[in-house]
């Protein structure tokens, strides 16, 4: 968990710093300096257009994290209320409609539809966010519903109903705080999946468009150079792996730390 938190913090920090400062402007191409090895000026070398790899990676972190974070946001903002409503209405028609809708979205191979959405509405970071975010909705709806259902059978919910509280208020006051742990853990998982999906989309050219740097497109560019400059294919991939790894470790750690069952064992 500690390693996960550190890795996540490093990349989040790199992304944040890149908003105000990167070592070298990523929009300036210096063909003369192309595919340089590591040096003091360029600690990670330069790419085939002579851009500083460290700056590219930092700016790429910004793109990846922003896209994945907003996509998770879409999932939480739309999915959680749907899941809570379904649980409050368990067995009723609303529950049925919401869950069938969920199943329908799950029936689509997610990346295929993400490709379609970005293809139809044109490739851009915003469309990548939407495409990934849509598939987060049923995930969060399911987790919220699954977490809420057993709570609804508990006596304290009954007590709240006897105290005259309606389903919306009970969901907000009792259910949501008690499933927050589940949602936080799921958010880290979806966040890491979002990073992978964003990388895949920009790798096939359907993510953020040039000149915005992104890890996926850096890899796509590197592939064309794979015989000439294979080293370019390494760093962006490592960045993706470390970010995703960090988030997953963080998620596992949070799950263990927040799981009341595990906590009770520790006494």
């Amino acid at each position: 968990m500690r390693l996960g938190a550190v890795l996540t913090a490093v990349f989040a920090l790199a992304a944040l710093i890149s908003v105000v400062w990167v070592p070298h402007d990523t929009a300036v191409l210096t063909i003369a300096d192309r595919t340089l090895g590591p040096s003091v000026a360029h600690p990670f070398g330069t790419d085939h257009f002579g851009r500083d790899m460290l700056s590219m990676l930092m700016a790429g972190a910004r793109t990846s994290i922003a896209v994945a974070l907003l996509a998770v946001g879409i999932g939480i903002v739309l999915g959680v209320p749907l899941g809570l409503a379904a649980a409050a209405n368990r067995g009723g028609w609303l529950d049925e409609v919401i869950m069938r809708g969920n199943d329908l979205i799950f029936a689509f191979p997610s990346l295929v539809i993400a490709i379609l959405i970005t293809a139809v509405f044109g490739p851009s970071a915003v469309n990548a966010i939407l495409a990934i975010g849509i598939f987060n909705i049923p995930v969060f709806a399911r987790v919220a519903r699954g977490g809420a259902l057993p709570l609804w059978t508990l006596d304290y919910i009954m007590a709240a109903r006897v105290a005259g509280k309606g389903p919306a208020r009970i969901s907000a006051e009792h259910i949501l705080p008690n499933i927050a742990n589940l949602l936080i853990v799921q958010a880290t998982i979806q966040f890491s999946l979002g990073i992978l999906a964003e990388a895949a989309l920009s790798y096939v050219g359907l993510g953020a468009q040039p000149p915005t740097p992104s890890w996926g497109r850096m890899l796509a560019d590197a592939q064309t150079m794979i015989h000439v400059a294979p080293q370019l294919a390494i760093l962006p991939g490592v960045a993706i792996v470390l970010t995703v790894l960090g988030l997953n470790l963080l998620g596992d750690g949070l799950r263990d730390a927040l799981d009341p069952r595990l906590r009770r064992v520790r006494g």
Partner: protein
Amino acid sequence: MIAVRDLSLSIHGQPLLRDVSFDLAPGRITGLVGESGSGKSMTALAMIGLLPVPLRAEGSIRLDDRDLLAMTEREWLGVRGRDIAMIFQEPMTALNPVQTIGAQVSETLRLNGTPRTEALRIARGGLDRVGLEHIALDRYPHQLSGGQRQRVCIALAIARRPRLLIADEPTTALDVTTQAQILDLLRDLVREDGMSLLLITHDLGVVAGMADDVAVMRQGRIVEQGATEPLFRARAHPYTRDLLSASQPPPRVPRAVADDLVLTARDVTRRYGALTAVDGVSLTLNRGESLGLVGESGCGKSTLTRALLGLEPVQGGTIDLLGRPGGLAMTRDDRARISVVFQDPYGSFDPRWTVARLVQEPFHLTGRPPDARDRAVRALEQVGLSADDLSKYPHEFSGGQRQRIAIARALITEPDVLVLDEAVSALDVRVRAQVLDLLDDLQARLGLSYLFISHDLTVVRAICDNVLVMQAGRIVERGPAARVFDAPEHDYTRVLIDAAPAIPPRWLEAG
């Protein structure tokens, strides 16, 4: 046959068992009684070599001339199921859901080389023996009731004729009539097979009716043991005395109740599709009266409770509260006049809320009064807690204290009617006695009316003036508690009373 000597067990330096010693003889039933956490189950698990992994018991458990505690896992395989078998408390989860009961009963026979048809024949015989003649071998556990599943568990435990059967609270999860049948079955099996039965239970009535010998456990120690009747008669150890008196609360002395109706139900009917859960139920509750509602699980008492609390619609009949429309039609102010205490002291509170917030939740109905906090303190003091407890969280309290908090929450709007839905069923007997005293005291002081729902006749008798007996959605008998219990008119009431485990009254006579 089996001699347990100085059995000790500890976790993180905390002792779970201390110098537990007892003997088990063939053909005899030994009761191991104690409250929750007394170490009964740990003793049982040690005796079948299934203690949770890091735990290791010290002392010795001798079966004939072998020390079970010194055996390797491989040696245990020759003992478990063959010499020592065990059944557990929860029949609903004790069987593999994806295997037929025939396969599960015959499994150990098959693994020991019995041919398939022979194993199935023995399994059939085993199921017949536990009273499941009418159940086919290819049924799955989910197709059976709780009592039937416990019979399957017994059948698979005795399939290889073990010499010792350990039964850990085998009937606690079952209804009282099912419990009586399972206990009869166990008693017959012991007599027929000459096996030894170690019966672990919290229920002194069960022990009194079943066990030849009894050992009383407290905090990991056996405080007293001996032949059952002399031990119950002598009550030599103060703890045994406490347990016995707490498990036998005195019957209620009926109170004079004014003719002042607070709650009335007339012909209330609740249907779910084709199923009629509550079928034309009528009841009346006067101010200061305690009305008991008795019945087994699925009889409709919970559904009726929810209808009276205004949580569910009814398809027929009317409910009146204080002369105004009750049930779903209650106004918010009227809802504050009826409140409820539930069974589960753990599920009754949002774990993230403080006691202050929890206790004040019912103010949602009335609007938060300016003196809300003072009233919360008063409510806590009424139930024997203090203002210091306001800032604590539910997990900081014991089960009994939590039920007190639940009562405080129910009292905060100063209601007229308190619905007590199995409110003391999950408590150990001594705590239960204290909560019953508290309820009695509150009623006398505040003039409350109680609707007391329970499956436990002893408790109902201790607190109720009048009783309703419910079966399959209908009230089959009603009347003053003393009359209903001493001279039941309906067959079902008689069955319930006969099935309830009880200590013979003459054992408890003074001297």
